[in-house]
């Protein structure tokens, strides 16, 4: 039975059901319960935006509030994952990765290879990504490319409540370390989500709109901006296909190549900084593997090479807009 729930609720439900299904699932993070040691309400916060609210009431001490020590508790989640647990660590904002990146990219990501295939590290690191919250340079980054670059990590960034629940459940049952990116500006988005637990396999992109003239490849919030752009372009007679990658690593390059082979045109849209990002990654792979199919230059739409500005005026200019995406499509289709 599907109901309309928000993406935020989908996260909560996925964790709740995973905890019901598997007693080794635990969760660690700052204020994910809230009120630890305080005189008032326990479960006071459920995370900084209330995403995990209510889980403590159901699962008790399997959710642990942590001190402000990301290296220690993200590392602890990784260590516990090597010892039979399936921990979820909440990093709050992905921007905080700089104080705990070693545990993620040199430890979790590399154990299996360094140890000759003898380790499994089924840990999920959940974090908020993206701009638009007027939270400025240190709380608004996308940073997905940094994790996608690292062999040994899997990187997920859903665009809908349905995908969120299914991909998070897969992340938790997956036997490799997963970086699960939740766009803070999508938490309120509602959509149909089945009540029963389900998992969406990694490495399967989703064609969210079929079209003949040009392929847009993107993920996260930019899926929605691209859909907006497509609606505008439809009126101009340009028929856009949109591929939502859903998982950035593993990457479903086949779906991308197949689409571009049909349309002959590609626009890669990314909310991450422009250098060495997901858009350039996709563009490069297509320029290598489907060059013959290309009828025009591959356009990339990304924010400028600047930190995320605070002022709403500037931040709105910073985030790639539907208009910019449409413009890029027009450039590569030559107006059509």
């Amino acid at each position, binding site marked *: 039975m599907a109901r309309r729930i928000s993406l935020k609720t989908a996260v909560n439900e996925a964790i709740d059901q995973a905890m019901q299904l598997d007693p080794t699932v635990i969760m660690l993070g*700052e*204020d994910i319960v*809230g*009120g*630890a*040691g*305080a*005189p*008032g*309400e326990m479960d*006071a*916060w459920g995370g*900084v935006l209330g995403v995990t609210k209510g889980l403590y009431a159901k699962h008790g001490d399997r959710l642990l*509030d*942590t*001190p*402000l*020590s990301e*290296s*220690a508790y993200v590392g602890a989640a990784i260590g516990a994952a090597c010892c039979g647990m399936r921990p979820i660590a909440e990093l709050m904002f992905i*921007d*905080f990765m*700089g*104080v705990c990146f070693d545990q993620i990219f040199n430890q979790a990501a590399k154990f299996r290879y360094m140890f000759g295939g003898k380790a499994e590290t089924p840990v999920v690191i959940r974090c908020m990504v993206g701009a638009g*919250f*007027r*939270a*400025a*340079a*240190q*709380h608004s980054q996308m940073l997905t490319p940094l994790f996608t670059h690292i062999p040994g990590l899997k990187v997920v960034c859903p665009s809908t409540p349905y995908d969120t629940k299914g991909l998070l459940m897969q992340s938790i049952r997956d036997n490799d370390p997963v970086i699960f990116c939740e766009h803070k500006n999508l938490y309120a988005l509602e959509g149909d989500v089945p009540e029963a637990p389900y998992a969406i396999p990694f490495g399967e992109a989703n064609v969210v709109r079929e079209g003949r003239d040009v392929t847009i490849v993107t993920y996260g919030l930019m899926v929605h901006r691209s859909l907006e752009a497509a609606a505008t372009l439809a009126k101009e007679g340009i028929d856009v296909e949109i591929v939502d990658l859903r998982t950035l690593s593993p990457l479903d390059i086949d779906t991308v190549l197949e689409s571009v082979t049909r349309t002959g045109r590609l626009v890669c849209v990314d909310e991450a900084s422009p250098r060495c990002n997901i858009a350039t990654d996709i563009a490069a792979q297509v320029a290598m593997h489907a060059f013959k199919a290309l009828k025009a230059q591959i356009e990339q739409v990304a924010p*400028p*090479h*600047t*930190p995320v*500005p*605070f*002022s*709403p*005026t*500037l931040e709105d*200019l*910073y985030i790639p807009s539907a208009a910019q995406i449409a413009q890029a499509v027009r450039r590569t289709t030559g107006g059509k």
Partner: protein
Amino acid sequence: MAANNPFPLSRDALLGCYRRMRTIREFEDRLHIDFGRGDIPGFVHLYAGEEAAAVGIMSHLGDGDRIASTHRGHGHCIAKGVDVGAMMKEIYGRKGGSCEGKGGSMHIADLSKGMMGANGILGAGAPLVCGAALAAKFRGKGEIAICFVGDGASNQGTFLESLNLAAIWNLPALFVVENNGYAESTSRDYATAVNSYVDRASGFGLPGVVVDGTDFFAVHEAAGEIIRRAREGGGPSLLECKMVRFHGHFEGDAQTYRANGELEDLRANHDCLKKLAAQLTSAGVASAAELADIDRQVLALIEQAVVDAKAAPLPSAADLLTDVYVKY
């Protein structure tokens, strides 16, 4: 009157400190209201209730002394002399703001005043302060640098490493733990495995002092001592200020983790401004009317700052791309 002043500061200096504390309070209380109205974007963490610490410490500093602040930075800024009008514009995201609207509440800085920035990353100021103190040591003019850190952030590795670094290099660096009992909704006692920050400091070979951070004079005295020592080459120390937070962790926080009546009690019995006012008036250093006069002036200042901020121009598209590099 000055003859009878029992305090270690002149009447003028005392009234200046009172004014700064009042300015912080008024600034914060006004933001609380304006945020509630939806006028202010982003995350805003208010310093109200903690003013005695910032002002008590900063009263010993000059522009050549550096501080690194936290996410809860407005009080440190004002106490360090950052222009209140520019701060308000910054928080409103306007041109003419301390950071031209690019930083916002969590990133207000003014290097010309020795204010190295509020910081959205917990504990990040501590290494920076080691560097500022190292630079001061190379300059050799007796300047110092101070890192402010919350009780929660005191568990960050960056902060802990810095204690050790400052100690082995004997840096003129001070670490002020602003212990307001909470990190977001989590109590200090849950998250920190030691009761006294003096013990934590000892583990890094640093002398430590604890003071009632709501008592301006206690802070002033303790800070004066360790600042003097640092200026003279005596090395780093840690100062714990036990204090209270009057608003939520950030604006929008329902604070259900507090005990019933906790906030009322804090405001009634642990208000550092009320305390200072009482100390000044009962010693006869200033009259209630004089303080009220300052209060009115501060109110007008803040009101004007808001009016100016709202009237200030918004940044434009061209501003988006500037200031990333000195040259690229």
